């Protein structure tokens, strides 16, 4: 990405600034605390940011824990299913079906088994993050190039060794896509889970603000959530580019 010429950079700013102004004018005209303008939201951000950052900390920690659980369970399972073709093809329709089930719908069941504590929330997040992980890993390891299997055989690798040294690295590019989807959905579901199984976290903060009719504070929290989401998604993408440099380099060569 090169630096844009000055005129283009200004034209990129026009639309956001106009929208902010329109919002502010609408808020002045409505002049009710139920429809705050960007000014009031900025004040809320200034006043509440220590509290919001603290609550987001809880949320992020749970999202990370849920994602880790999902990655540790689902990536090996996906590779295993891709290797064991019969088991995989029998389980595939079930996976498809689970993929279409919205993660919040599992909340009531998780509540029965795990209550409303951290474990329950992490379980819901892990379910949400696990689906894209296992789908992508399974797909990648199922459609592995036949040559890779032949190489493994001629090296006399055992089954486990084949999975670790051949299947896993070969599936990494698609797993990375799964990771990106999984991180995004872990963040989304963590807020939802907090609102349904309230204890603490940014979801609870939002609900508290709603109960007290503090719309500006709620919008401030949403602004923080969106910033955090932006940063995390960007970090994941950068990490992927860095760790999978060989894959992207390969792509470049093929295009030439």
């Amino acid at each position: 990405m090169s630096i844009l010429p000055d005129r283009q950079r200004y034209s990129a700013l026009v639309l956001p600034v106009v929208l902010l102004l329109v919002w502010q004018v609408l808020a002045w005209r409505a002049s009710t605390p139920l429809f705050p303008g960007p000014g009031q939201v900025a004040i809320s951000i200034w006043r509440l940011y220590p509290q919001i950052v603290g609550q987001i900390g809880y949320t992020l920690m749970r999202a990370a824990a849920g994602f880790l659980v999902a990655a540790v369970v689902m990536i090996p399972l996906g590779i295993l299913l891709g290797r064991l073709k019969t088991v995989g093809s029998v389980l595939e329709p079930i996976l498809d079906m689970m993929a279409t089930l919205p993660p919040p719908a599992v909340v009531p069941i998780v509540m029965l088994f795990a209550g409303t504590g951290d474990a329950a929330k992490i379980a819901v997040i892990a379910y949400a993050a696990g689906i894209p992980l296992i789908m992508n890993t399974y797909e990648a390891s199922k459609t592995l190039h036949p040559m890779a299997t032949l190489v493994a055989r001629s090296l006399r690798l055992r089954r486990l060794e084949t999975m670790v040294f051949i299947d896993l690295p070969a599936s990494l590019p698609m797993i990375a896509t799964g990771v990106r989807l999984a991180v995004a959905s872990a963040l989304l579901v963590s807020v939802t889970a907090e609102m349904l199984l309230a204890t603490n976290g940014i979801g609870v903060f939002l609900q508290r603000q709603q109960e007290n009719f503090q719309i500006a504070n709620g919008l401030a929290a949403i602004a923080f959530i969106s910033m955090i989401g932006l940063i995390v998604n960007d970090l994941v993408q950068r990490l992927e580019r860095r760790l999978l440099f060989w894959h992207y380099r390969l792509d470049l060569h093929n295009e030439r």
Partner: protein
Amino acid sequence: MGAFRFMEILAWFRAIISFLIIIVIWQSIALLGLVPEKYFPSILAIAAGFRDMVISGELVSAELRTLSRALLGVASASLLGISLAVLGDLFPSFRRGFAPIAALIQPVPPAALVPMAVFMLGLGPKLYAFIVILVTVWPPYFNGVAALASVSDVQIRTGQMLGLSRWQILRQIKLPAAMPEIFAGIRYASSISLIAVVVAEMLAGHDGLGFLLIRKAFAIRIPEVYALMFVCAVNGLIMNTAVNGLRWRFAGWQLRMAGQAA
């Protein structure tokens, strides 16, 4: 053609077998009492719960509401996303200005929007329209922008050589070329829209599957909860089928080409 038929039958066969296996495993766990029966009812109990809800009519009305909300939402979000992508393609300055807005709104979860949106939009259809569209408009938009920008120069030049206007080039060359990628976005959007509708119903609704799910869970009617989850999953399949059908209509050229090559 014969081989295709055979593969199709095989796929159905596999689906039925895996379904049967799940039922057998589920039933044996329930019968062996590994998990308290209260939390893990047998298939028969779940089926009975399903039947009761169908007879009382609550399941059918909730299902129709949820499905129509999700379908309407994803349809309008897709149209909006494609229009915005076209707008961005015609006016690059719009695209640059819209980029930071899109980047900021996109990671906001539907659940976070519900409590604030309730004040401004009430609990009616406006709430669902707002939540679903704000959450699902992005995949078609981003895919559309990327696909419109990467239409090959040769195709565009050919259009210019044939004396097509800018609008005709967009309508007859660029959009059809971008459709497969746009539909990949719409497919993703359709699964998010179902999530957004169920979340909104759980948090703020007074009807629909999400609301029914929460109410049954608090009433500890566990078989009904499992039956509702099953219905939710079937909804996902319905949405997928609908999107695939439309995809065949609008982006079928790609599939037909792939079929010929094989």
